[in-house]
C-alpha cells in the first residue's frame, strides 16, 4: 500500500448558517485503503461526504479529489457513490438501473461483473419495487461500483439492514477492495469500522478527534471503550 493521496479535505470548515458542521478538518485518503469515518449522528460525516462528492462547497479550506475539484464533472468520473438518502425509480429493473448508471462513466465494469460483486445475478430482471430492503441496498451499491471507480464513497451503507445482511454486505465491500480501489466508508457502527477499515477517523461535532489504525485507536480496550472515552473527553474539553 503506497501513500499516494487520492482525496483530501484540507483544513476544511463547513457552516450552514449558524451551525458549524465541520471545523478545520483535515483528512487524507490514501490509495488502496479503506478509511472509516466513524461518529455519531450529526457529527459531520455526511457533510464531509458531500464535500468530497462536489455536492457542496467548503466555507473555508480546500477539497481535492483525484487531483482536482470534485465540483467539476471531470473529477467525478472515477468516483462511485452510495448515498444514504437515495432511492431509484421503482419501475425499472435491476439490470436497467445498472446499465443507466454505467453509461455515465467512461470505462464501466461489465454488467455481469457488477452483478457478481453485488450478488444480484438472481435478481437481474426484478423491478426495484419488488426487492427487499437489503436487496435495494445491494442495488445502490451496484450503482456505486458499476463505473469501476478509483474512489468509492459509501455513506452509512448498512443502515437499516439486519445483522446477516450487514455481514453479507461487508463481503461485497471486500470483493470490491480486490479491484484495488480506495474506499471512504462512513458509519456509526463501531463493529463495522473495526471489521472493514485500514484506518479509522473518529469525528464528533465537526472535528476529527482521533485518527489511526483500529488497533491504535482501540489501545488495550475495545473500540467502544475508546470511542466513549474519546467523545467524552471531547465533551469535557468543550465544557
Amino acid at each position: 500500500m503506497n501513500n499516494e493521496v487520492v482525496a483530501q479535505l484540507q483544513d476544511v470548515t463547513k457552516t450552514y448558517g449558524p451551525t458549524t458542521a465541520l471545523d478545520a478538518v483535515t483528512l487524507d485518503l490514501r490509495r488502496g485503503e479503506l478509511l472509516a469515518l466513524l461518529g455519531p449522528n450529526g457529527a459531520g460525516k455526511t457533510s464531509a461526504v458531500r464535500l468530497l462528492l462536489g455536492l457542496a462547497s467548503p466555507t473555508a479550506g480546500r477539497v481535492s479529489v483525484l487531483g482536482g475539484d470534485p465540483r467539476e464533472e471531470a473529477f467525478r468520473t472515477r468516483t462511485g457513490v452510495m448515498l444514504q438518502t437515495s432511492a431509484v425509480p421503482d419501475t425499472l429493473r435491476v439490470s436497467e438501473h445498472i446499465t443507466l448508471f454505467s453509461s455515465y462513466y467512461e470505462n464501466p465494469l461489465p454488467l455481469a461483473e457488477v452483478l457478481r460483486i453485488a450478488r444480484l445475478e438472481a435478481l437481474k430482471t426484478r423491478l426495484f419495487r419488488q426487492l427487499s430492503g437489503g436487496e435495494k441496498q445491494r442495488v445502490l451499491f451496484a450503482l456505486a461500483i458499476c463505473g469501476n471507480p478509483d474512489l468509492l464513497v459509501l455513506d452509512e451503507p448498512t443502515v437499516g439492514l439486519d445483522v446477516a445482511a450487514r455481514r453479507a454486505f461487508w463481503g461485497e465491500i471486500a470483493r470490491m477492495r480486490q479491484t484495488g480501489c480506495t474506499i471512504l466508508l462512513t458509519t456509526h457502527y463501531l463493529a463495522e469500522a473495526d471489521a472493514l477499515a485500514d484506518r479509522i477517523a473518529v469525528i464528533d461535532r465537526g472535528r476529527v478527534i482521533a485518527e489511526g489504525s483500529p488497533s491504535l485507536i482501540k489501545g488495550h480496550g475495545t473500540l467502544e471503550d475508546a470511542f466513549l472515552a474519546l467523545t467524552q473527553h471531547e465533551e469535557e474539553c468543550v465544557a
Partner: protein
Amino acid sequence: MNTFQRRSRLVWTESRYEILKHLRTPAFIVPTLTFPVLFYLFFGVAMGGRGMGSGATMSVYLIATYGAFGVIGTALSSFGVSLALERGQGLLQLKQATPMPLYAYIFAKLASATLFSSIVTIALFVMGTAFGGAQLDVSQFAMLFATLVVGTIPFALLGLTVGYVVSAEAAVAVINVLYLPMGFLSGLWVPIDFMPAMVKQIATFLPAFHFGQLALSVIDMPIRGHAALHAVALIGFSLIFLATAIAAYRFDRRKNYA
C-alpha cells in the same frame, strides 16, 4: 468510443429509461394520456350537436384545444412532478454525484414529454377523424402536430421552475393547481368564446390561452386576434420561464448543495 459518441449514448440511454420508467407507471400514463382523450370524446363527440353545433366544426376545434391541454399536462408532469419527486427521493442528488451531465437529465425529460405529447396528439387526431367527423388534410394535421410539439417549450420550462422549488409531497398538488384552472380559464375545455368577458380578459395573461389560439389558427379555426401575436406571446413566456427555471435551479442548488 470517442467522447461525442459516448455522450450521445449517454443521452440516449437516459432518455430511453426515462420513457420506460413512465410507461410502466400507470398513475402517470392514465391521466396524462387518457384524460384529454376522454374529455374530447365526452365534449367533442358526444355533445357535438350542442354548444358549438354542427358536429364537424366543434370536433375539429376541440382537437386543437384538447391537444394543447394534453400537451401542457405531459410537459408539466414530466418536468414538474417528475423532477420534484426525484429531488425528494435523493435520486437527483445521487445522479449529480456521478459524472452525469445535467443536460442529459433535462434532455431525457424533454424526450419523454415529447413522446407522450405525440401520443396524446395522435390519439386525438384519430378520435377526431373516426368519431368526430373531422376532415382535415394531411398538411393541417402535420402543422398542428408540429405546433403542439414545439409549443411544449414554455410549459416544460414552467414545469422545471416548479420542480426545482416545491417539495416532492406538494408537487402533484401544485402542478394540478397550475394546470387545471389555467387550462379551463384559457378556453381549452370550453371554447373561449363561450366564457364570460372577465375570463376572456384573464386569458390573455395565460400562456395556455395563446397556445390554444395558435393551435387553432394552424387548422383554420376562427381565433381572437392574429396568430403571429400569439406566437410572440409564447416566445415571451418562454423567456420568462427560462429565467425562472434557471433561478429555481440556482435556488435549489444553493439550498441543498451549498
